[in-house]
């Protein structure tokens, strides 16, 4: 690392951040029953979406009549490691894209098919299927000249107070993780399990859905689906979770 990047990296670590030795997946804070639900592929409801995604992977769509498999072959080969490094910077578009957006860009650009709506069953299926191919691999987004500004923007979003309740993400998830809010344990809030089967939703859902819900919870206006704010925050969260294993599709309360 050059001196410049070292200094920038040091700047990134602040007093509020969780010490590296204390970082852990939110899996560890769940009840034994919920952990068991995640661990068993035959009991994890998220696997129903992975199954859906597996089916869609070979479905020919759009005016191109191409399937994902036609370009990408076997997902368990070509998609290994992909979810672990998303969001990535798309130089052609000059912006950061997350996994859901990348899947939709493939649909529009290459399959010439209409993009799928956020939280659409099929999009969740494909995201879950692709993400599950990275299970066990460490979260590893790329921080370079293109993405560094997004990391900073995401960090600003994470640490700023917002909403009528006037809380920042950092205050709960860096400063008070492991303590209780009402009857629930506050998680560190890592994205390494997404898309997750959330018991509160009784459905699989995306990271953007979760982030929007958090903002509503502090009575802030959530950023729209697909907004650069959400993707910047995702990027910061993935960097904050660096090294934690991908668990998609995780179960969370």
């Amino acid at each position, binding site marked *: 690392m050059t001196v410049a990047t070292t200094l920038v990296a040091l700047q990134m670590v602040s007093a509020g951040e969780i010490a590296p030795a204390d970082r852990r997946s939110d899996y560890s804070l*769940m*009840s*034994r*029953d*919920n952990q*068991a*639900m995640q661990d068993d592929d035959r009991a994890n409801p998220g696997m129903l979406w992975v199954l859906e995604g597996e089916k869609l992977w070979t479905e020919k769509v759009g005016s191109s009549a191409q399937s994902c498999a036609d370009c990408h072959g076997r997902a368990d080969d070509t998609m290994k490691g992909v979810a672990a490094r998303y969001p990535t910077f798309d130089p052609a578009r000059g912006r950061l894209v997350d996994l859901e957006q990348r899947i939709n860009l493939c649909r529009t650009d290459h399959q010439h098919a209409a993009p799928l709506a956020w939280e659409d069953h099929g999009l969740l299926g494909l995201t879950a299927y692709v993400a599950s191919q990275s299970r066990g691999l460490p979260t590893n987004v790329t921080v370079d000249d293109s993405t560094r500004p997004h990391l900073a923007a995401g960090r600003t979003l994470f640490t700023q107070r917002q909403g009528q309740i006037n809380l920042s993400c950092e205050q709960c998830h860096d400063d008070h993780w492991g303590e209780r*809010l*009402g*009857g*629930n344990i506050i998680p560190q809030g890592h994205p390494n399990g997404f898309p997750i089967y959330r*018991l*509160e939703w*009784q459905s699989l859902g995306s990271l953007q859905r979760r982030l929007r*819900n*958090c903002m*509503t*919870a*502090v009575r802030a206006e959530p950023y729209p689906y697909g907004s650069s704010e959400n993707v910047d925050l995702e990027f910061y969260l993935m960097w904050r979770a660096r090294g934690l294993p991908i668990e998609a599709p995780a179960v969370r*309360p």
Partner: protein
Amino acid sequence: MPHRPLDRTPSRRQFLITVVGASGILSLPASRSAHATPATMAAAIRQVVGEAPVTPGKVKLDLPPIVENGNTVALTVTVDSPMTPSDHVKAIYLFNEKNPQPNIANFYLGPRSGKAAVSTRIRLADSQKVMAIAELNDGSFWSESVDLIVTLAACVEE
């Protein structure tokens, strides 16, 4: 913030003590129309067992004492039985006290089951009692009940 109707049993003070003890946050799902009560649970049980006595024993009901999220609660019910043609469990009935309806599920087994153990996942609207009743082939009924605390989501998101 949605409120519970004031006329439900148990008394409002008892209810507030239970809920505040459990979670400290009185945020509830929007629809709270009809509720089961201990009386409707008793009536639903009577429909199954008639006037026969229900004896505590033989049944093991596995549920977490404190529930992180009432939407999906893992439940396992096991009955101590050799499951032979002459001595086996015919059915297991699950009941609850405070969901809108007293029934949860009925399971029908027999000697071909080999083992009287069933697992599923249930919904619980509130802290309450869940009861499992096993019916043996000799017509006897056995039971176990568990009291659970159901915590409500701290952050109301939608």
